[in-house]
């Protein structure tokens, strides 16, 4: 009897193994619950309430007081600071991404060419990434201060004593770009370096045997292999650059004038500082959301095309 159950058990094992693809057990539904709740709170609910706020008159004390149609959108469009801030956000995101991807790829290639382990040097290179952005802003602001900064001696030598990189609109915008890229270049370097390590050694050896030099191998053999990772890192950088906020608050407060007022800062200012125009701020967030969505859709399309071409 025991023998027959044993045989039966074996048979059922064989049967389940033979239809393995269908036998793969379904993930229980409750496992979706935590993720679904967190999505609901951080994305679903804010979207619904954000839209509702955009079409109503609200104050921080009492939201959703009266339906006002498109008044808030008109107010957003008429706000000088906001209208330009969308463009500034987009320009900042694209330039910051280009800067950090270029520098990050260069660093990754250098790390790869150096050989050896990631080690202490690698850790030091990654530190900017974990620095609180508020501290990044304070550190760079003090570093560049016209009085007491680190470069006052250099400015004297160059004959531009008291030079303040944050003094002009273009200067402040560019300086913020550099600070942001300083913080987020390491992420690109790390992701691309990992991708470089993943390139099969045989590919490089084959290229070397075929007479290709280091640079030629890098461009023609290694490049296409890591291109998807570089693009993924670029999209990630784009997302991060659109979120820039802390640096602006600490370093320039959107100035001089409105030259560094990016959209996220302007939305915050409209809602929580000075005028407390909640409805206008909500309308602005919707417009910012549309802009970010559009830019990322384009970026996603490019990424997918490259990935498909690769396969």
């Amino acid at each position, binding site marked *: 009897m025991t023998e027959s159950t044993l045989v039966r058990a074996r048979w059922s094992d064989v049967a389940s193994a033979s239809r393995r693809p269908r036998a793969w057990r379904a993930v229980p539904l409750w496992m979706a619950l935590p993720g679904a709740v*967190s999505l609901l709170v951080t994305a679903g609910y804010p979207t619904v309430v954000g839209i509702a706020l955009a079409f109503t008159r609200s104050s921080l004390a009492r939201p959703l007081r009266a339906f006002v149609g498109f008044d808030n959108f008109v107010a957003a469009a008429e706000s000088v600071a906001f209208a330009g801030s969308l463009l500034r956000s987009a320009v900042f995101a694209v330039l910051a991404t280009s800067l950090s991807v270029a520098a990050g790829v260069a660093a990754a290639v250098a790390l790869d060419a150096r050989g050896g382990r990631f080690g202490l040097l690698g850790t030091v290179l990654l530190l900017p990434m974990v620095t609180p952005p508020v501290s990044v802003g304070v550190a760079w602001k003090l570093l560049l201060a016209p009085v007491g900064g680190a470069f006052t001696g250099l400015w004297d030598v160059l004959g531009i004593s008291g030079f303040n990189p944050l003094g002009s609109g273009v200067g402040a915008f560019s300086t913020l770009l550099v600070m942001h890229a300083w913080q987020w270049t390491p992420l690109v370097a790390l*992701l691309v370096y990992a991708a470089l390590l993943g390139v099969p050694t045989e590919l490089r050896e084959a290229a070397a045997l075929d007479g290709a030099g280091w640079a030629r191998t890098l461009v023609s053999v290694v490049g296409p292999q890591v291109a998807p990772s570089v693009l993924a890192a670029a999209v990630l950088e784009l997302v991060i650059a659109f979120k820039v906020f802390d640096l602006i608050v600490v370093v320039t407060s959107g100035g001089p004038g409105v030259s560094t007022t990016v959209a996220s800062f302007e939305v915050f200012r409209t809602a929580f500082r000075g005028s407390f125009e909640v409805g206008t701020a909500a309308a602005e967030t919707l417009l910012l959301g549309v802009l970010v969505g559009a830019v990322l859709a384009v970026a996603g399309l490019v990424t997918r095309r490259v990935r498909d071409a690769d396969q």
Partner: protein
Amino acid sequence: MGTGFSRSADRAQRGRAVSAPVLRRTVSAGAARRTVSRAVLAAAAVLALLPVLFLVSLSLRGVDDISNGGWLPSQVRWDNWPAAFHTVPLAQMLANSWLIAVGATLLTVLIAVPTAYLTARGGRRGARLYSLLLAAYCAPPVVAVLPLYFLLKSVGLTNSVLGLALVDGLANVPVAVWLLDGFVRRVPRELEEAAWVDGLSVAAGVRRVVLPLVLPGLVAASLVCFFLAYNEFLFAVSFSQSPSAQPLTVGLSLFQGDRTVQFGQQAAASLVAVVPVYLLAVAAQRLLVGGLSQGAVK
């Protein structure tokens, strides 16, 4: 197949034929390249450390010493450090930062583990959840600030460390899932199937088979989420007005609003925020690097 074979044999022969001089050339070129890359990386490391090292120098100098310029203190003095703790309630804020970051990380991990299992193994439904999470991560957080403010206010969690921990914890779920998903995918399905044959449920299999195998990824994801919550500023400055619930990042920005602020104190306060994360990052360097790079490269 025959042609392929002969081509590779031909290539091997060619390689052998040119090997001696070419090899010497490539070796010396490789050495030069390594020197150049070392120089580039050393410059990058200096650049990476420069702003924070300057903070250290500023924090050890008096007002006059700072306005005279220069890189190093003419005379080291420590009074900026205690003074910074008096100007702003730094100790309280440091404690708040840690409470918020630890609480948020625990919440993130609790949610991310089952979610990442679903996104990795849940077929089409999992893939859909994964892209929804990534889409939610892409939106700038400022978009959610006003609705979340009203939500927290209605449940009495503005001006609260708990409220900030909850918001940060939920907001970081997509990042943790993104990192963990790749780790779960690499767990061989056969191991789980064997656990099921032994009578384990899917959930028990996740706990006893999958979780131990993705532990390095889990630690790395926790670290990343800790850093994100510890460094968070937008939600903190929007949802907490009283110092009793404000984290360090908000405290640092308050320094900024003060016109008569002293650089030395500001530098000391910034370092108070920086030092713990740097120590953590250096201590867990290998795990962090492994987790970030393995999780992201799929």
